[in-house]
């Protein structure tokens, strides 16, 4: 069978899956088929709801499937590595698959990043290939394929991994969309409110925002206080971060 037909059968099977354990098994088998040892399909969010039994996906809370060594998964979650893992940071900077040897082309590798990779290696996570899935309006995520420490990446299979990773993430997204109950409610913001938050993120004061939008300064304050209340945060910077994280505004909007 050609690589394309392998991918196509992965897509056909993954498309209708509703049970996360089935997607896990399917991903595990194609991961090996491509010459990798482990995979991790995940949203880049707080991973504490992650459960080995996949309850977090059954309830639609978050996308997280992995066959990494168990102690590494535990350590990853307990130490909240998701917040400074250089692989995930790099994954926010691109939408195309990259191997971890290219990390320094995407982000500036600081000491904690290098230490993190080293900890991974000690836990058996060697080189990897990461397929980002960053869609405006949704939490960022990725599908990571890795080899054990000391093994080479299967270079010939990276384009296949690119496709499989993108489709796998979509399959994960379908499972949690389907499962999602009212458990997780995204905070609702009005378009005007989002405009104010964008401008806060660009460093504008309430007065400046009121001039730009042609509304009263007190109205701007109301919008912002209301948004902070909805996010249960007290500082403006927290509100901006939450709104980006929620997908209410793409980070590119803040950089204009």
């Amino acid at each position: 069978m050609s690589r394309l037909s392998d991918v196509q059968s992965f897509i056909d099977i993954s498309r209708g899956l509703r049970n996360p354990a089935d997607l896990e098994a399917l991903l595990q088998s194609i991961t090996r088929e491509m010459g990798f040892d482990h995979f991790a399909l995940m949203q880049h969010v707080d991973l504490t709801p992650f459960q080995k039994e996949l309850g977090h996906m059954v309830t639609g809370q978050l996308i997280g499937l992995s066959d990494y060594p168990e102690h590494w998964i535990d350590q990853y979650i307990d130490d909240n590595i998701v917040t400074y893992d250089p692989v995930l940071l790099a994954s926010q900077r691109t939408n195309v698959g990259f191997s971890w040897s290219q990390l320094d082309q995407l982000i500036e590798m600081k000491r904690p990043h290098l230490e993190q990779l080293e900890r991974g290696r000690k836990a058996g996570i060697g080189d990897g290939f990461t397929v980002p899935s960053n869609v405006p309006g949704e939490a960022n995520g990725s599908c990571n394929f890795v080899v054990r420490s000391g093994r080479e990446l299967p270079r010939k299979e990276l384009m296949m991994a690119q496709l499989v990773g993108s489709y796998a993430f979509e399959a994960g997204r379908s499972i949690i969309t389907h499962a999602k109950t009212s458990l997780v409610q995204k905070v609702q913001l009005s378009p005007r409110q989002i405009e104010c938050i964008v401008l806060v993120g660009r460093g504008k004061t309430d007065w400046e925002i009121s001039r730009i939008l042609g509304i009263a300064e007190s109205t701007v304050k109301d919008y912002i206080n209301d948004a902070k209340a909805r996010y249960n945060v007290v500082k403006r910077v927290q509100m901006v971060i939450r709104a980006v994280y929620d997908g209410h505004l793409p980070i590119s909007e803040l950089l204009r």
Partner: protein
Amino acid sequence: MSLNARYITDYTRSEIVSDAGLLRTMHEDRKSVFIDTLQWPLTAQGSLEIDEFDHADAVYLAGKDYTGVHRASIRLLDTEGRHMLADLFPYLCEGEIPRGPDIKEVTRYTPSPRAKASERLIWRNMMARAVIEYGLLTGIRAYTAVCDISFLSQLLSVGWRCDPLGLPQSIDGSAIGAFIFYVEEDSLSKFKQSWRYPRTAYSVTPKELQHAA
């Protein structure tokens, strides 16, 4: 920001040429998106991006704001005639290139950088819906697309059935692949929540009115 009165409609090349404001702003936005931002190796004609596929048989689905300025567009090419997958990227397709009167190639999806991000998202959703509505109304079974891999996650996240036609390839430093997505009776109901547009997005009426006037 009222988008209620807005719609996406279809234009033949000669129709879009006769709408000077839309034509100019669409080609300006294409230059801004594909040449200035994405840095694709395309040649600009002054402030415009136009290529050999903007020919007489090209059809556009486009939306404009109330002043007549371009807000979002795509170009549809006949797969039985000259189109990008067959003429420029045949090697992206592993089997035979899908061709037929009921298969169109989608190229140059252009969200206007003039619009705010929140507005671009609305136009994006209108366009996705319009593409399916137009397909259902005109008997299109599927669309093919040569797609920069950086756009793949978005393309898949819509919810419609979409398959690869070959493995992606590295070209000029970026990865590109060919895909086909299908127009099905239940396509719109498969759309993910974040891609939904709550009303009909495609309309033929305004153009007919324009012709009658």
